[in-house]
């Protein structure tokens, strides 16, 4: 059997089978069966390579290719479920299978000695299965099921150490917050289904492009599209649903790297990219909303990132920042830029998380106020983190630079100069806080000698993935060039491979390119100035604007606002509902219906109890009632 796109279903099948096996027999296997999980990860990557080769062989017009099965088919409802591959999918697959395998490998080191070691890999397998299904699904129903599946896995993994109250709380928060978006997504899917009678993505896109049926109604289409985006915004932690992602750092670090950086959180980006024709067909307002939320998210997260002191949380805010950038790209109709950023981000963000995980593993400390000077103790971690941070900041010629450049070019094309300037400014801030976190954690004098003494380089099973990811971070940006793409067997550069409507041949805009590079270097240069020595200059700035500092330090009070909303609105409403349930539904509805039944027996005291004659009377009474209905209908 030729292994190709039609066999894409193999990917979730492999990990799903491993999951089932681990779930059933995991505890009887040595080491909780982690080798099976690693094997499954590698196997998916190998299958992915086959699929990629196959995809490069076929003409682009025939995509997507896949295989579907009738799930239910009867009058009025026919649903086919299937798995299919196109260019966007293949980028996601690359991230999921490759980063996924690396992280599973890394986890075997990071999670060693945990009491629920085996369970961790079991859930990880379930997560990868759901994620692959989400990516490969050719219809919205399966996509939604997988969407919820990754949500549940995320819940389980954030709360992996659920004995810790904060972890349990964070898991709950993540689940509920993303659920808010998911409800929107579900309603959106149902709206599309109502309009087209199908869940199939290609058919929906076609219907939207041609404005068939209900989708011809601009308001309907826009509403449905925005509801889809609500789901994407929840999963991808866009303002105002971003609050869960920083708290999700309570989970084990490999989980943060895999789920909350490389794969699950970009599902929203993936969904919007996949449905891009629908967004384009809808009212321009839909894309404007995407862009606007992207900008708000970028600035909020960048501002908070400046003052956070927890190394993992800074990386988390940088993730929100990156996701915002991707949505800005999508809002500017540039699937190319978004997907390129998604791909490179998958590498360097996973790298950042794993490197910070390596720090945490070694020092058991994640507050930067207790770290410092670690680069001598753990050089591999330090240098890889540095490269990751620089890529995130967007320093040429690292991959982050090229991806960010694409986004800026797209902004220039589709939007106005103000937005371009704003985006460039965000680049500057990003450079500052990424530089700051590296500076505080790895350079300078150790602040806590106790911690410093404990620090040591992590085992090779953890540093090896770091090195691999670093290499990719260094080079993966170059695929924007046509020459590199062709050398690898693609049609051309990334823009000629993944695009919306028109292939985009890469061209370098010198003004934007140099400008953003200057912003990055300026940002990085500011870091030693503000935080050098004891960091009194940074303190001075904070003192100068106390209210702003407080606002940012408290993360714009988003959590508090939600809390007030919960207390004042939700609990009050639910109290009313509970009262309604207790008094109206229960007392009147239920007891009342029992009472009506008794009345129907004419003399209550005979019918209510287990008396056989009353039962017989009920039968006779029923006969008469039926006869009454019959004659009423007849005459």
């Amino acid at each position: 059997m030729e292994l190709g796109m039609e066999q894409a279903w193999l990917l979730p099948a492999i990990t799903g089978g491993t999951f089932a096996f681990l779930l059933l027999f995991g505890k009887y296997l040595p080491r909780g069966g982690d080798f099976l999980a690693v094997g499954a990860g590698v196997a998916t990557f190998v299958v992915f390579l086959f699929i990629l080769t196959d995809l490069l062989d076929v003409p682009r017009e025939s995509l997507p290719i896949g295989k579907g099965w009738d799930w239910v088919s009867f009058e009025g409802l026919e649903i086919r479920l299937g798995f299919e591959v196109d260019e966007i999918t293949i980028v996601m697959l690359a991230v999921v299978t490759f980063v996924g395998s690396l992280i599973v490998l890394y986890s075997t080191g990071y999670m060693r000695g945990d009491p629920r070691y085996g369970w961790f890999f079991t859930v990880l397998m379930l997560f990868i299965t759901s994620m692959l299904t989400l990516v490969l699904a050719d219809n919205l129903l399966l996509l939604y099921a997988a969407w919820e599946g990754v949500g549940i896995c995320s819940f389980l993994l954030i709360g992996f150490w659920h004995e810790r109250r904060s972890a349990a709380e964070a898991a709950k928060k993540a689940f509920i917050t993303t659920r808010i978006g998911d409800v929107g997504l579900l309603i959106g899917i149902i709206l599309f289904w109502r309009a087209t009678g199908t869940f199939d993505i290609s058919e929906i896109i076609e219907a939207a492009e041609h404005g068939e049926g209900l989708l011809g109604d601009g308001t309907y289409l826009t509403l449905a599209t925005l509801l889809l985006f609500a789901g994407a915004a929840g999963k991808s932690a866009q303002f105002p649903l971003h609050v869960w992602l920083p708290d999700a750092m309570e989970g084990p670090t490999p989980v943060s790297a895999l789920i909350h950086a490389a794969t699950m959180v970009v599902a929203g980006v993936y969904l919007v990219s996949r449905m891009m024709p629908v967004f384009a067909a809808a009212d321009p307002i839909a894309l404007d909303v995407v862009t606007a939320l992207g900008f708000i998210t970028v600035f909020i997260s960048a501002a908070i990132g400046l003052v956070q002191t927890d190394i993992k949380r800074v990386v988390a805010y940088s993730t929100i920042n990156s996701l915002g950038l991707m949505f800005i790209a999508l809002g500017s109709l540039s699937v190319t830029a978004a997907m390129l950023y998604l791909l490179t981000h998958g590498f360097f963000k996973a790298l950042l998380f794993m490197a910070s995980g390596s720090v945490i593993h070694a020092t058991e400390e994640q507050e930067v106020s207790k770290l410092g000077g670690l680069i001598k103790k753990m050089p591999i971690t330090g240098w890889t983190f540095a490269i990751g941070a620089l890529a995130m900041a967007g320093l040429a010629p690292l991959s982050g630079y090229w991806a960010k450049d694409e986004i800026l070019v797209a902004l220039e094309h589709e939007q106005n100069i103000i937005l371009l300037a704003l985006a460039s400014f965000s680049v500057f801030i990003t450079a500052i806080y990424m530089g700051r976190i590296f500076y505080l954690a790895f350079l300078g004098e150790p602040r806590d000698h106790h911690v410093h003494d404990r620090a040591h380089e992590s085992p090779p099973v953890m540093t090896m993935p770091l090195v691999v990811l670093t290499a990719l971070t260094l080079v993966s940006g170059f695929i924007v060039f046509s020459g590199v793409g062709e050398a690898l067997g693609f049609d051309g550069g990334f823009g000629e491979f993944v695009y919306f409507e028109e292939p985009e041949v890469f061209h370098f805009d010198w003004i934007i390119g140099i400008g953003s590079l200057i912003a990055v270097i300026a940002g990085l240069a500011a870091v030693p100035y503000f935080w050098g020595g004891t960091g009194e200059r940074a303190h001075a700035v904070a003192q100068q604007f106390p209210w702003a500092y407080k606002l940012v330090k408290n993360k714009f009070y988003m959590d508090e606002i939600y809390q007030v909303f919960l207390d004042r609105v939700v609990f009050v409403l639910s109290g009313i509902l509970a009262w309604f349930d207790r008094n109206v539904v229960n007392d009147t509805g239920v007891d009342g219906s029992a009472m009506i039944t008794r009345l129907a027996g004419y003399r209550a005291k005979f019918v209510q109890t287990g008396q056989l004659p009353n039962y017989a009377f009920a039968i006779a009474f029923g006969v008469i009632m039926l006869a009454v209905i019959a004659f009423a209908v007849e005459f």
Partner: protein
Amino acid sequence: MNPDWSLLAPEYILAGWAAMVISVDLFFGRVRKDYLAYLAALGALVAALVSLIYINDDKPFGALLQIDNYATFFRVFFCLIAFFTCLISARFVQERVIHAGEYYALILVTTIGGIYMAAAEELLTAYIGLELLSFSLYVLTSFLKFDLRSNEGGLKYMLLGAFSSAILLYGISLIYGVTGTTNFSEIAQALSGNNDDLRFPMLLGLVLIISGLGFKVAAVPFHMWTPDAYEGAPLPITAFISAISKSAGFALFLKLFAEGFMPVIDEWRWIVAGLAATTMVFGNLVAIQQRNIKRLLAYSSIGQVGFLMMGIAAISPDAASAMLLHLAGYVISNLAVFVAIIICYNQTGKENIDDFAGLAERAPFVAMCLGASLLSLAGMPLFAGFVTKFILFQAAANQDMLWLAGVAVLMSFVSLYYYLVVIKEMYLGQPEAPTRFPIVPLEYAALAVLTAGVFFVGLYPQPFFDATANATDLLFAGTSAASVSSGPPAP
């Protein structure tokens, strides 16, 4: 012309096996009683396998029976119900019942009655099958001789059953008088002619037949026996009644009304729709107040009957197969629930909802399966109940029964409440004694198989849907032909 007796092989196997079980019990009195359970279960399984021979057959047995896919579907279905009932009875019967041989023999004989109800092509055979089923169940319900509740349940079931079968018979006699035949398709032929003169007796006959069958399937207000018989009967028999009595009743109901009374559908559609509405409302609302798990399930099953009757009210090829699908899904989920409850009852001897407190700690697997099947009964996605209900409601809505489907959706939400109460007890309640349940492999295996079925139907219903669609395929072929052939009344 001699009929082909080999068509009835599964029934002969069941009857012979029942006799064998009794004989083994009688002549080898010292044999372990649970072996009898396995023996009887084997018989049911053999009968189910033999029934598979007749897949895609369509042969009449005289004018009495029709061995087609419909009959085969129910043969296999009933035999499997009997199979599971025998298996899960093993421990219960060993500890609590005196006449084990007769117990298992009666289960097998009940199955025969059910099969004849489903396979019958005319009313006399159907009636006799119904009585065979009922009689066996009367006896089984009162099988715990010294349990006052069992006696009482049996007495009420029996007397009301006799009363309602008299009502049914009177209805049959009227329909016989109106049409001059008891054969379903001939009834349809006679009714499709212009018979205004006999409208009144025909309506009365219809009402009486619906009432009589309504008693069998426990539709409100003919349901009064259900909670008492459920509570009184030995637990495995409660499971058995809830599965076989209902499905056999519906098998006959559907066949009779699809083949026989289709020409006068306008007359009875509203009766059945009204019955369905009252049944689902009443059953689900009263269930909320129950404290005993058996009574809870009795009322919940009444609620389910309402949903199923909706399938008959909205009768059409789609609705019929949707109804069969929901019936199968309901029976699988319900059996799984009962298996779990029986496992607990064998351990604790208690059957109130409070007694399930903390079950998740004492028997995590049982609690998980019970939870899953209860959610399936409530119609949650992922489980059988969701898909089957969805298809059924959709079919009803397609047949201009949107209001009824609306009521059904509302009542599904109500039902979620009382199922969640049980689940809440299991997972959040404090167990009385923190001891773990011992694992009984056979019972756990039965539970696992049934729960797997719940998930399977929930995730991939297509094979089941194909089976039910095949089964109901021929039901409507006859009527359409009859109504075509009888356009203008023949001179």
